[in-house]
């Protein structure tokens, strides 16, 4: 079981963390909500929780809570540009269908 970062995503995260000036890594998770069942959680992490499962990818520490991991296993987090918009994209093999904009999904 693993969650990884693309190289581009890792360098953006490292940059954001440096500018932010604090934090130990990135917290990735899922939670129930949204029009299609589940939604991603993407946050800076200031502390690790006892149950967290940790990964390291391109030098960035990733924290995932054990409940989220089954839904995220095999996911690669990428940084993408779409026209003027840019941001992080979850390439998640577990997703069966997603809502129109992809912000929430089903597994």
């Amino acid at each position, binding site marked *: 079981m693993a969650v990884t970062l693309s190289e581009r995503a890792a360098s*953006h995260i490292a940059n954001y963390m440096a500018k932010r000036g604090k934090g130990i890594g990135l917290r990735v998770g899922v939670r129930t909500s949204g029009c299609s069942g589940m939604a991603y959680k993407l946050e800076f992490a200031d502390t690790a929780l006892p149950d967290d499962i940790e990964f390291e990818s391109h030098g960035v520490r990733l924290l995932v809570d054990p409940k989220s991991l089954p839904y995220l296993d095999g996911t690669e987090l990428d940084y993408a540009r779409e026209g003027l918009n840019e941001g992080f994209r979850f390439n998640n093999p577990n997703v069966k269908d997603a809502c129109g904009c992809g912000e929430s999904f089903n597994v």
Partner: protein
Amino acid sequence: MALLQIAEPGESAAPHQHRLAVGIDLGTTNSLVATVRSGLAVVLSDELGRPLLPSVVRYLADGSSEVGYEAQARQAFDPRNTIVSVKRFMGRGINDLSDREALPYAFASGEGMLRLATVAGLKSPVEVSAEILRNLRRRAEASLGGQLVGAVITVPAYFDDAQRQATKDAARLAGLPVLRLLNEPTAAAIAYGLDNAAEGVYAVYDLGGGTFDISILRLARGIFEVLATGGDSALGGDDFDRRIFCWIIEAAKLKPLSVEDASMLLTRAREAKEYLTFHGAAPITARLGSGELVDLTLTTETFAEITQTLVAKTIQPVKKALRDAGLSVTDVKGVVMVGGATRMPQIQRAVGEFFRQEPLNNLDPDKVVAVGAATQANLLAGNRAAGDDWLLLDVIPLSLGLETMGGLVEKIIPRNSTIPTARAQEFTTFRDGQTALAVHVVQGERELVSDCRSLARFELRGIPPMVAGAPRIRVSFQVDADGLLAVTAREQTSGAEASIVVKPSYGLSDDEIAGMLKESLTHVKDDAQRRALKESQVEAQRLIEAVRSALTADSDLLAADELARIDSNIVRLQSAALSDNRRQIVLTMDDLESATREFAARRMDKSIRRAFAGRNISELDGETTIAKSGEAA
């Protein structure tokens, strides 16, 4: 698939519930939009990667418009319909423009805010600004992938109520909810994180394309107070280009140029200026329409030499602003550089030498105001990190007050009060039976209404007829977080109420504001004397009114010689009140008072004897003067 941003711990938004907020620097020459992405404030670029949007709008015959670079490129061909520097017209009347003849526009005559006659019809500066804001809003929505909850828009610190309201109106027209208007120097200070820095005085040196502004700010308890502003509305980076342009013509001994050649050389001049920021010498080569070749090298030394007077011209207002603030160079804790023109090494050097410290310049000076505004917008939209719960407060730039008898200003909210704020004061009537009250709202630092700016007038009607000084009229001033004023007057016994949201038709010019601040400082003593004189004159008039109304009611209590003596004293006081001799007025008032003492005693006896008799309550037509409470005769 949606693109996500990293949130602060515990702050992940629910899907489709992102609180997208932007900061907008609505500049005279260029405008920018910025946002906070994954905790980092960034300026949003257009499809071609250009961060700036020239603040230029061109109207076309079919009613549509072009904004930005597109419009700028057509400026020379269609000057009348291509509006540049519209910010200078915001909240202004046609008579506020001193350089109207020099501008290529057709101004529509009429009252209120000026309007420009374009091929697409009459356009107000608010509509033109709205085009710029709409363009930035679309850019932001495309960049953030959703609707904006709102924007923080920056305005110069010296912008008055009319100009701020016009800016807000433009945003509304562009479909952009305004979270807050923020002073430009304050935004720059936020971008540098000075709001988290030690308390103290900071200077913001803003040299843009065509304008220069200096602001002296004091940070205390998380509040930026504007101590003084100054500048030159006709001095900017473009003037440096022109100096190089003139140098090229002289150095290459060129004959009078065609329009195309002149415009090309001006572009070469600007390129050379930008090149010299990072190099010791700039090559300037160009082939003119005639085939003549221009091949020159401009060194940093020569550049500094030919622009020496321009640099010195920026230091003068800096000195003046410090003097106005009552501070010296050593009081300034930090200097923030804003505007692309501050990249020039000679500017950096001059500012550093003047303030005896390295200016803050590690942020992009073109973007610093927008970045600060975006930071503030992110907080106001509710995207706060834990422990980051401060809210920046701003202050009002000029005191707000109203006119009282004799053309005096009673300040209700003093300048530099933090906003939002509300203050109330009680006033009363000046004449017996007065049933209406004119409330005249003014802004400025001087003691006399004629020296301040008139913002609005309204009337409170339906005051029950009472003797002068009896009604209690509570006037409340309320300034919201954007610095906009609402005034309410309420007569306490009857509940009669009138109010106005101040939306004046004219605004103050930058020079007027700067001038008004300066004058208030240089005229303090003068003003105090004039105020004392005016107050005595008002007092004298009030006494005369009181005696006259007593005579109308009870002249039968007086013998003929007594009446004559009182009358002659009234005449003496009337002429004294017209003079500038305050001492004479006071002495004559004493005379009238002693002449009427016996009369007053008799009236008192009479009123005790008779039952509550009717008073003279005839409404005095048009006489709707206002008096300060507790001063009535």
